[in-house]
């Protein structure tokens, strides 16, 4: 019997690898392909040139008022953003108290980052901090009026602060509410099930703006004369109710994916409904739908811009408000403001969507390996 040694592998022929081969396959494969490449290339060059020209080459970078942005060929008016930056982030929050907002941002990040990393432990303690301790702490810090902190009325809150408050409150409130609704939708009690289905279908079937109108205009009617709802609180309620209906559908997807065997095993161990749900079913279901939850949050984050229609000043609202400042009135002020707001929103949303993809991949490898 002979022994066999494999032939040594050779590198691929030079005309099949490397940049030239790649370009031939991906850019110039057929005549049509070449034509498309040239067309797309011209388009891309045109757009990039226009953007670059507007944002950098023809833009103004320093100045104190509108005269800085009245050049012959004018691009972006960045001094406008610089001058108003504080207001864009904090609204009319008093300068002296802004450290409180920064503290709230920071403590939020400290709690959030470990929560988002799947391999970091202490998740339960983390959750209690984020959902229990942090909201109370944030409220006290931002609102004031106790513990020696000056009171800052919610009408002075504005900009990115409001955007984040509405979005985060929305998601934090809608998660438990959504879970309850999803459980209720699967309940055996017909009244509970009907109410839950009704709630979910109604809030998913109507636009958010009608819910905000309803909250702004109708909530005061439900309360006795004299007691009035803070405008911000009204919006928070509307957003929370709206978002919980979507969250309920996301959680429902997770609940449906739990095999019947889990319920059976729990019953065999003598666990009742609530124990089964909160010890066995929910942890698995929620983990399954983390990408769905993040996607709901992305949608919610974008939807917070609607509060400007009912008179609250989120990031977009406050940027728009400052368009009326006569000392900055130039033809490019509007566009610069919108681009800035767009960029901030884009940054947040893009980061969140990347995280969602990361979690999806992590979860699928998790599942296939276990």
């Amino acid at each position, binding site marked *: 019997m002979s022994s066999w040694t494999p032939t040594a592998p050779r590198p691929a022929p030079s005309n099949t690898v490397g940049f030239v081969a790649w370009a031939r396959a991906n850019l110039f494969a057929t005549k049509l392909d070449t034509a498309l490449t040239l067309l797309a*290339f011209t388009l*891309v060059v045109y757009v990039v040139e226009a953007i670059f020209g507007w944002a950098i080459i023809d833009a103004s970078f320093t100045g104190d008022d509108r005269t800085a942005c009245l050049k012959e060929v004018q691009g972006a008016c960045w001094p406008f953003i610089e001058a108003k930056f504080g207001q864009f982030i904090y609204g009319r929050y008093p300068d002296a108290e802004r450290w409180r907002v920064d503290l709230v941002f920071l403590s939020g990040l400290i709690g959030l980052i470990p929560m988002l990393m799947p391999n970091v432990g202490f998740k339960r303690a983390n959750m209690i901090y984020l959902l229990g301790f942090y909201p109370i702490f944030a409220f006290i810090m931002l609102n004031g009026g106790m513990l020696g902190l000056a009171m800052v009325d919610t009408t002075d809150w504005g900009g990115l602060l409001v955007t984040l408050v509405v979005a985060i409150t929305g998601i934090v409130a809608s998660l438990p509410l959504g879970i309850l609704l999803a459980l209720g939708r699967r309940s055996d009690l017909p009244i509970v099930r009907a109410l839950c289905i009704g709630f979910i279908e109604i809030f998913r079937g109507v636009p958010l703006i*009608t819910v905000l109108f309803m909250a702004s205009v109708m909530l005061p009617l439900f309360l006795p004369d004299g007691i009035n709802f803070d405008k911000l609180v009204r919006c928070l309620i509307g957003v929370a109710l709206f978002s919980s209906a979507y969250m309920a559908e996301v959680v429902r997807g997770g609940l449906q994916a739990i095999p019947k065997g889990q319920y059976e095993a729990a019953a065999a161990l003598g666990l009742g409904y609530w124990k089964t749900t909160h010890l066995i079913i929910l942890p698995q279901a929620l983990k399954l739908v983390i990408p769905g939850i993040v996607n709901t949050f992305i949608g919610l984050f974008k939807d917070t811009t609607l509060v400007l229609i009912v008179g609250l000043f989120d990031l977009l609202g406050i940027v728009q408000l400052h368009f009326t400042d006569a000392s900055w009135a130039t033809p490019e002020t509007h566009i610069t403001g*919108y681009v800035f707001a767009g960029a901030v929103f884009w940054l947040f949303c893009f980061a969140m969507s990347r995280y969602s993809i990361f979690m999806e991949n992590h979860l699928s490898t998790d599942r296939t390996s276990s």
Partner: protein
Amino acid sequence: MLGALVLAMVWLVANVQSNLERQNINSGFGFLSERAGFGINQTLIEYSEDSSFARVLTVGLLNTLLVSVLGIGLATVLGFVLGVARLSSNWLVNKAAMVYVEIFRNVPLLLHIMFWYFGVLRNLPSPRKAVSLGDAVFLSNRGIVVPALEMTAAAWWYGAALAVSTTAYFWLRRRARLLRLADGTAQSIWRPVSMIAMASLAFAALLGGVPFSFDIPALKGFNFRGGITVIPEFVALLLALSLYTAAFIAEIVRAGIQSVSKGQREAAAALGLPDNTALRLVVIPQALRVIIPPLTSQYLNLTKNSSLAVAIAYPDIVSVFAGTTLTQVGQAVEIIFITMMIYLTLSLLTSFAMNRYNARIALVGQKS
């Protein structure tokens, strides 16, 4: 616990009643027949300040449907093109589509609307200095003015010609298909169809003359007379809705086509099917099953998102009814209830239709 809930509801209702009385707001739906007293700058049906609030509701609803249907059409076309581009083997086209999708869908829709309206359309010059395209289409900050089509009597002949050509097309197509099934002959129908079309067109031209005339807009004073004016609010809303939703549709289309496993394409290729036949008979039918449910969801979203019209005063249902009418009449409960009911009906109808369609095309068998 149920008792506590009932008590709470009774308390709430009592509050509502006393508050409404206090503010002198009526109840009931009688207000719908009262005179509206305000103008609307885009109406698809007859409307004047003397019309009733019920007519206001109808005008608003039609405007909502107009921008939604057109938006759905544009978004679908653009979305499918982008989705296919995302799967292209051409790297540049692929990445360019990806950049579009990632940028447009991560920016809030309201910002899109504001950008197009305040950032672009309002920055157009005034009508006197309007941008003109071929001296027939004019862009200004008062809107886009295009020539209006006015049909002459001759139009009937052309209508007939169109009818003849269409009938011929369908009949010939059916005949060709039956022929192919019967004995395998493949036959192109383009020649006979185009000949019939040209003949009937020539006939119509001979008998009727010119079928329509253009009412070309002309600048008179401060604005244009004649033609059709498309208000900037409509254009901004349509652009924003279409470009935004197209980004989502692109991802749905891409996922749908990718969901058809590679093996399907390989099997079709191994059977000798040419690429476009394989696409038509094997890939697309399977892809559509995956695409249509989330696509319908996006259509619904677009329709609900059209309510953002209120931010730029496009006269959709929220703007004119839950906005202006509510300020005038004050009956918030009834008005918001009606508005929500209308959107709810649209949603439920579409969901119902979609569920029916889904059940019908579900792949048969346990392993679908």
